[in-house]
């Protein structure tokens, strides 16, 4: 059995009601499912003795600038044991703009989620320390949102006095 099928089979047997979409483009295997199950699925992927996705390489988001399902959260996982890279995607509506934190699963997710919060304004439920990562704390905007102008908003970032 291929490893991809094993992942899907594990997901199916543990979460029978979970609707999973997969894409497999040039060796990038990707799983898409609903946002409310993200912590359970991540826990399974990490702690299952055969899967062992112990490395959370990156967490980022996409702003589609659409009215429905505006944001997509993207998680890049790697299994050192199986040398397999997996991508998870969950859609989030703009009216919610929040998703459960996976920092309880991988501790690295703490900072990666802070980065997503900083850049997209997506909040993470139960996050232990949701502060901005790059921008100054008093900054009011989220620069990677599509409505944010590339050159920024004049006066939003103060310069020192001359």
């Amino acid at each position, binding site marked *: 059995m291929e490893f991809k099928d094993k992942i899907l089979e594990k997901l199916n047997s543990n979460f029978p009601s979970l609707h999973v979409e997969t894409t497999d483009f040039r060796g990038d295997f990707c799983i898409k499912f609903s946002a409310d199950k993200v912590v359970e699925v991540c826990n399974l992927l990490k702690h299952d003795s055969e899967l062992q996705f112990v490395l959370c390489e990156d967490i980022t988001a996409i702003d589609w600038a659409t009215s429905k399902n505006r944001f997509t959260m993207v998680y890049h996982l790697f299994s050192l044991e199986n040398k397999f890279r997996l991508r998870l995607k969950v859609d989030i509506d703009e009216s919610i703009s929040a998703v459960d934190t996976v920092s309880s699963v991988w501790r690295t997710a703490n900072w990666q989620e802070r980065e997503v919060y900083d850049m997209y304004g997506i909040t993470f439920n139960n996050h232990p320390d949701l502060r901005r990562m790059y921008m100054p704390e008093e900054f009011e905007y989220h*620069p990677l949102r599509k409505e944010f102008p590339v050159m920024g908003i004049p006066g939003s970032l103060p310069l020192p006095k001359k």
Partner: protein
Amino acid sequence: MGLEAKLQQDSFFTTTFDAIISWARKSSVWPMPMGISCCAIEMMAVGDPKYDIARFGSEVMRFTPRQSDLMIVAGTVTYKMSHVVKKIYDQMPEPKWVIAMGACTSSGGMYRSYSVVQGIDQFLPVDVYLAGCPPRPDNLLNALIQIQEKIGRTKARDFQNLPNPELLKN
């Protein structure tokens, strides 16, 4: 100064304080290497034997602003970093000079974006702008020579080292 050949016996020469002080100042400019990103690599190259900034009396890179007279801002200054740069500049004793090294510091360079200051002259008095991305090390030496020429034209009384009332207020 080629004086030694003339000094066959006890002798003296006359000059002005301004001439001798500015000569001393310009021959021992101590840089504060404010290396923030890639331009700093070229700034390091200036210190190596090939380019050898010691020929111009500036090999003493001081990593404390309190001992430096020349700040070489080498790299992309973001808005967040600008406060740090200014704070370090304020700690340097007068008289002091600033080189804006590279496209980023001079004008924001290729980073026309919300996070990068579009030219550090918005918050620092820049003496020499240095073109290039990154500038070649010999270009930095050229900037140093221009700073030296500028220092050579100064008068000692231009710098009274009076405390800045603005800074005392904070």
